[in-house]
């Protein structure tokens, strides 16, 4: 495809709405008691209901409602108090029942919002139209057998949350950040593992363009089959350029469903508007309606984990951390929870953040360990920070000697280690003065040079003190004493 010039692309405004499907982390399926598990042998997690056998009746999984309430609360949605389920009818091999049980007119959540950063780093509100409960279909494999499509029904009936955004997204960055935020949110809420490669989090994008300043949206295309955050961004970018190219050449956009090809980075038609499904929704007679009481919502509310945005605001506003630090810390929930506990035991938040983002993260990366298995408890880390703050050890002794020994000896406090390894910094005035005098005596000519104005030589004297003291001299005190001696 011909790349449009920047000034042509700049004439148009991108408009995107995203539909996210999140597989719920339940043990069993939405409407039957067969196992919900990724990676099992094909067709080993099924039941007569999942296979669409006659005479079966669905029974609704309680957990699925609680998970839906969680995300509803986290996105500030209105929770629907009386709901029923609907059948969405279509004929396809991965859906043996011939219909998907979903929510049509009474989605459990409506009218919420999520805040994401726009391309200028400003907060941008993205509206959530609705979130509803439904079930996944099985998996069709088209490329393993030349004559048949192979079907695996393990995934059929896995509970899904479909999260539909308003068409509020105006740039590729916002689309990426919105999806990243939704993924982070479902992970924080423990309702979905957010693994896009395995398909437990999937995204369809409704993409249109209009001239800047226009008030009416252009015709939109729905793009499917993007299996990573990056690919969602690539697919939207390609689709935007494709539509602009058509409009610039006097064409018009046909409303259709398109698929993204990750290898070529392009989209192609899956079905046109004429082929659009006629789903013939009607109320599901086999599932009784649901009624949510205040108490159901309260119970879920009480068990809610901290949310990434709350933590971000706390870290930047109350703990005085930079936006960058706050973002790194909240990115993964287990890291954030570790940091939370650490800051409950130290007031030196900046040092706590630096340890978590620096030494701790690099240890986790190098050893491929998760923070849950990190050998040093937050209280012990706080102890390490405390003895640095008390000038008992220097930063470099802490990172190079005490921290590694703490990793090897879980449960031993930083102070015990520093004491037994003889690493405590010497802050004894007389002792330090003695060493400083020795150090200066070793370089009489340099002392003269210093006194003549070469102040850069202070580093040399400090090095000598460190050498003579086995690196145990308190550097702050030593440099003060040095200065004093040299001024004499």
């Amino acid at each position, binding site marked *: 495809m011909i790349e449009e010039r920047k000034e042509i692309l700049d004439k148009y405004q991108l408009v995107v709405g995203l539909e996210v499907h999140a597989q719920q982390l*339940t*043990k*069993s399926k939405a409407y*039957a*008691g*067969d*196992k919900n598990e990724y990676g099992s*042998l*094909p*067709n*080993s*997690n*099924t*039941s*007569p209901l999942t*296979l669409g*056998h006659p005479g079966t009746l669905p*029974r*609704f*999984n*309680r*957990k*699925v*409602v609680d998970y839906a309430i969680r995300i509803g609360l986290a996105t500030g949605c209105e929770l629907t108090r009386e709901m*029923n389920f609907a059948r969405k*009818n*279509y*004929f*396809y*091999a*991965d*859906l043996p029942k011939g219909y*998907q049980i979903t929510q049509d007119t009474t989605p459990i959540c409506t009218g919420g919002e999520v805040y994401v950063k726009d391309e200028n780093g400003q907060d941008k509100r993205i509206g959530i139209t609705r979130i509803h409960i439904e079930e996944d*279909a099985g998996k*069709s*494999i*088209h490329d393993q*057998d030349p*004559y*048949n*499509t*192979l*079907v*695996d*029904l393990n995934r059929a009936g896995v509970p899904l949350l479909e999260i539909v955004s308003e068409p509020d997204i105006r740039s590729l960055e916002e689309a990426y950040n919105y999806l990243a935020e939704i993924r982070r949110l479902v992970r924080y809420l423990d309702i979905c593992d957010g693994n896009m490669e395995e398909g437990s989090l999937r995204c369809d994008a409704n993409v249109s363009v209009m001239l800047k300043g226009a008030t009416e949206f252009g015709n939109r295309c729905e793009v499917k089959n993007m299996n990573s955050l990056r690919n969602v961004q690539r697919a939207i970018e390609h689709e935007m350029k494709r539509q602009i190219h058509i409009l610039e050449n006097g064409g018009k956009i046909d409303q259709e469903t398109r*698929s993204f090809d990750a290898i070529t980075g392009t989209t192609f038609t*899956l*079905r046109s508007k004429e*082929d659009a499904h*006629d789903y*013939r929704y009607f*109320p599901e*007679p086999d*599932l*009784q*309606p*649901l*009624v949510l009481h205040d108490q159901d919502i309260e119970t879920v509310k009480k068990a809610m984990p901290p949310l990434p945005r709350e933590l971000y605001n706390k870290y930047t506003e109350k703990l005085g951390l930079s936006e960058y630090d706050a973002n790194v810390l909240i990115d993964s929930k287990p890291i954030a929870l570790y940091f939370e506990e650490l800051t409950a035991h130290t007031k030196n938040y900046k040092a706590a953040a630096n340890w978590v983002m620096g030494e701790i993260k690099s240890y986790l990366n190098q050893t491929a360990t998760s923070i849950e298995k990190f050998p040093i408890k937050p209280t012990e880390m706080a102890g390490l920070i405390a003895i640095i703050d008390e000038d008992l050890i220097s930063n470099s002794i802490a990172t190079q000697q005490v921290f590694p020994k703490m990793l090897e000896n879980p449960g031993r406090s930083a102070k015990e280690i520093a004491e037994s390894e003889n690493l405590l910094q010497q802050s004894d005035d007389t002792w330090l003065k003695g060493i400083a005098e020795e150090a200066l005596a070793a370089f009489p000519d340099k002392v003269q040079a210093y006194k003549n104005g070469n102040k850069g030589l202070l580093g040399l004297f400090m090095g000598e003190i460190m050498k003579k003291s086995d690196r145990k001299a308190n550097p702050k005190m030593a440099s003060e004493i040095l200065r004093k001696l040299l001024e004499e």
Partner: protein
Amino acid sequence: MNVDDKLIDRLSNLSKLEFGTEEKERIKSDLVKMLDFVAALQEVDTDGVEPLIYVNPEVNVYRADEVTESLDQKEALKNAPDHDSFYFKVPKVVSGGE
């Protein structure tokens, strides 16, 4: 509703069935009878009446989130017209579906 070939074609497409000309004619006359029957019901004034979706007044019929049943692979596949040891086999579908 106008019961013509177009409607029958659309319905057969939705249900993935194929009919011959003669069958189509029979379906058409059956369908007209069914629609007439429903039309008779539509004469009743239902203004202001909530639709009755469920005959049974029960709500919140839940099941705990536990694995209570699972068919093994062999059991799951045994009634399928075509399968191998792992998968159901169906005619090749090139595109479409969800």
